[in-house]
């Protein structure tokens, strides 16, 4: 079923064939033919952002909340370079994106033409794969391949660079059915003998823990269901990385909370003292492991990951299983059942007793205040007032992000959108726009900081244009809080450039954009104000004035191990000089 059409028409046709209903983009000279083709159809809706970085994060939010490939369309030169941060973000967090970039006509490539840049050269390092389409004959294959590569295996961003003459050229379009990739065929099923061995290790474990990550969410909702089943069968404790929150419900009996630098005391101690760690779709990132030579020293480690390069990259494991999380978890469950394994209940009972002892430290506790809103309290109230609704949360990057991860509790996958690997300030608002496009009736909240939000503030205009009722919940402490916290820990409290001076009036700013602004600084008034925000049918900026010098605890200081956490109570002790906790070697780390 090949049909003759122009390159631009093929691009729109390929989007339809790939099931794309929404794309995010910004027009320019080198993509005009594609915009013309978009104009003449109604299947694919285009969302006009205000900056190409916003398009990339919006596509990420769309992808993360639906499990589909997110698509953005930008012009050549600055259009492409503006999208780079979003592409890198998607690469580090394994988010499937297809980024269509315009390019100058093929005969001008290399001549430093107007708005020319070497897009495939620049994006080679921040994409899973990229293409420069040199002729119309290659176009249909490349378009479908791009979607295949983006969503298969460990997902990631793919750039397709489209010279303007190729967009105008006539050629034969082919649908996705006839296209198969010759080299890229990731392995989905895990090796069954290794799975058997891993299950036997689990049955023998006395102090086990599941350590799960974003890979479980990328594997699809079935992986989360299977994970819950396996946890219920074994009774093992479970913790998750920032990216994996929601794959196991926070209300579940075996949930320890998030682990890592700002994870809970019980999650990190369980990791440190376990005798068997089962890593599922997690990559032993430095935010998770802390000091590597003191990372869970006494444990055997099983690692399930679809990307062979994640295995033994940072931490040497005893049993690796390469495969898709859902497939491997399914096989683990059936092997466990078929072989009639039983857990060592006496040992597990003692292990849980130890864990309860750690839990009793209540590491997320903070000192409440009647006069100022504590940021943790603000997130807690937001959670309590939104948990029974159909809610999606995005965040920016910094203290507010960690407080959101600690105090907002997720019951389902795909409900939590945050920039984990790259740590991109300015991610949350455009991501919320992408989520809201995919889920028009849901409540979408960007938990933000007053510094981060200004990085992509212009996207408020997009929200207003498309009547997207996103709620921007700013924990405003007038500091780049995480920078200030590190300056307190490492640099004698010299707050170099971390004070948010000359902030806009966020209420007036919201009104200037055509949205609603709400300010709240009184803990007594907070619930009422949050409900007002939720009930407003359009976009809202909520300026929540919080305690200025609150630090985010608990914390594994850089260069320290899981069992060397700083707790809030310790930092409150008058005798402890907080600036002395991190040693010289730790200061070198990020």
């Amino acid at each position, binding site marked *: 079923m090949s049909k003759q059409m122009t390159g631009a028409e093929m691009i729109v046709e390929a989007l339809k064939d790939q099931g794309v209903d929404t794309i995010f983009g910004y027009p320019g000279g080198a993509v005009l033919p594609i915009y013309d083709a978009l104009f003449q159809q109604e299947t694919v809706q285009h969302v006009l952002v205000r900056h190409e970085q916003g398009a990339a994060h919006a596509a990420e939010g769309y992808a993360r909340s639906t499990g589909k490939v997110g698509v953005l369309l930008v012009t050549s030169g600055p259009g492409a370079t503006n999208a780079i941060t979003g592409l890198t973000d998607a690469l580090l967090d394994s988010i499937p994106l297809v980024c269509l970039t315009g390019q100058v006509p093929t005969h001008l490539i290399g001549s430093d033409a107007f708005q020319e840049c070497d897009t495939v050269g620049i994006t*080679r390092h921040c994409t899973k794969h990229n293409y*420069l389409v*040199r002729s119309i004959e290659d176009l249909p294959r490349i378009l479908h391949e791009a979607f295949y590569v983006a969503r298969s295996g460990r997902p990631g961003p793919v750039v397709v660079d489209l010279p303007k003459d190729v967009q105008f050229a006539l050629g034969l379009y082919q649908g996705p059915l006839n296209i198969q990739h*010759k*080299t890229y065929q990731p392995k989905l099923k895990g090796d069954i003998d290794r799975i058997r061995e891993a299950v036997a290790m689990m049955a023998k474990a006395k102090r086990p823990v599941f350590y799960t990550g974003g890979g479980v969410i990328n594997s699809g909702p079935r992986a989360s269901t299977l994970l819950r089943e396996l946890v219920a069968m074994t009774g093992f404790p479970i913790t998750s990385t920032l990216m994996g929150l929601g794959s196991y419900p926070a209300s579940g009996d075996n949930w320890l909370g998030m682990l890592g630098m700002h994870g809970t005391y019980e999650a990190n101690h369980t990791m440190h003292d376990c005798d068997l760690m089962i890593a599922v779709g997690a990559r032993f990132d430095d935010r998770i492991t802390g000091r590597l*030579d003191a990372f869970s020293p006494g444990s055997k480690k099983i690692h399930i990951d679809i990307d062979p*390069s994640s295995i033994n990259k940072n*931490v040497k494991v005893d049993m690796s299983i390469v495969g898709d999380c859902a497939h491997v978890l399914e096989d683990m469950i059936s092997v466990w059942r078929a072989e009639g394994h039983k857990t060592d209940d006496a040992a597990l009972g003692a292990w849980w007793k130890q864990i309860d002892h750690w839990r009793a430290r209540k590491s997320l506790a903070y000192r409440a205040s009647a006069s100022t809103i504590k940021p943790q309290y603000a997130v807690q109230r937001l959670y309590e007032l939104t948990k029974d609704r159909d809610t999606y949360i995005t965040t920016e990057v910094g203290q507010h992000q960690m407080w959101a991860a600690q105090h907002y509790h997720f019951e389902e996958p795909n409900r939590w959108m945050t920039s984990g690997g790259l740590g991109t300030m300015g991610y949350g608002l455009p991501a919320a726009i992408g989520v809201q496009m995919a889920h028009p009736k849901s409540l979408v909240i960007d938990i933000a900081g007053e510094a981060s939000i200004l990085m992509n503030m212009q996207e408020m205009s997009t929200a207003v244009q498309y009547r997207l009722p996103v709620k921007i919940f700013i924990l405003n402490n007038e500091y780049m809080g995480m920078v200030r916290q590190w300056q307190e820990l490492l640099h004698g409290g010299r707050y170099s450039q971390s004070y948010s001076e000359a902030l806009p009036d966020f209420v007036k700013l919201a009104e200037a954009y055509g949205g609603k602004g709400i300010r709240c600084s009184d803990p007594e008034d907070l619930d009422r104000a949050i409900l007002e925000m939720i009930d407003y049918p359009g976009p809202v900026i909520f300026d929540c004035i919080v305690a200025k010098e609150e630090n985010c605890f608990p914390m594994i200081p850089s260069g320290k191990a899981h069992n060397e956490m700083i707790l809030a109570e310790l930092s409150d002790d008058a005798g402890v000089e907080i600036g002395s906790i991190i040693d010289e*070697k730790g200061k070198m780390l990020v």
Partner: protein
Amino acid sequence: MNAIAALSPYSSSLGKSNIERHTLSVLVDNEPGVLARVVGLFSGRGYNIESLTVAEVAHGEHLSRITIVTAGTPEVIEQISHQLERIVPIHKVTDLSMQDKVIERELAMIKVHGTGDHRSEALRLAEAFRAKVIDATIESFIFELTGSPTKIDDFVELMRPIGLVEVSRTGVAAITRGAQGM
């Protein structure tokens, strides 16, 4: 790219000792940018390239073979192989140093200037190394020498006092012995 890049401060579990030299054979689709992807991977992740050769080996299928000599701890070498396998147009990565028997060859052209005794000494040594004379003037020779990289190193060192002008080397090409392919 001579020095082994410093390991990340978080990589304390990876020892800096037992650095090994490995030869990797990489079969790739011969498409634009594929070499840049491979080389960019090495520079981007701080790996070391000692030698690199590339040429198309199957014209019909547009397949090229890249041979890379690299050095690192066994953990780093394993990472390099896995990272290479992630590159979409790569068909196969084989660590030839992990195979039983591998043959490595390099071709070099060595220009030597000299007259009188130096000239005849150069010729005698070339004969001992089975180097071919491929160009000659009254006061110079160009030798062509094929062999292992160390053999070429040895020959070049011998030519240095005689009147070495310049050397051009291809880098290592490698293949396993026996009937099996990679």
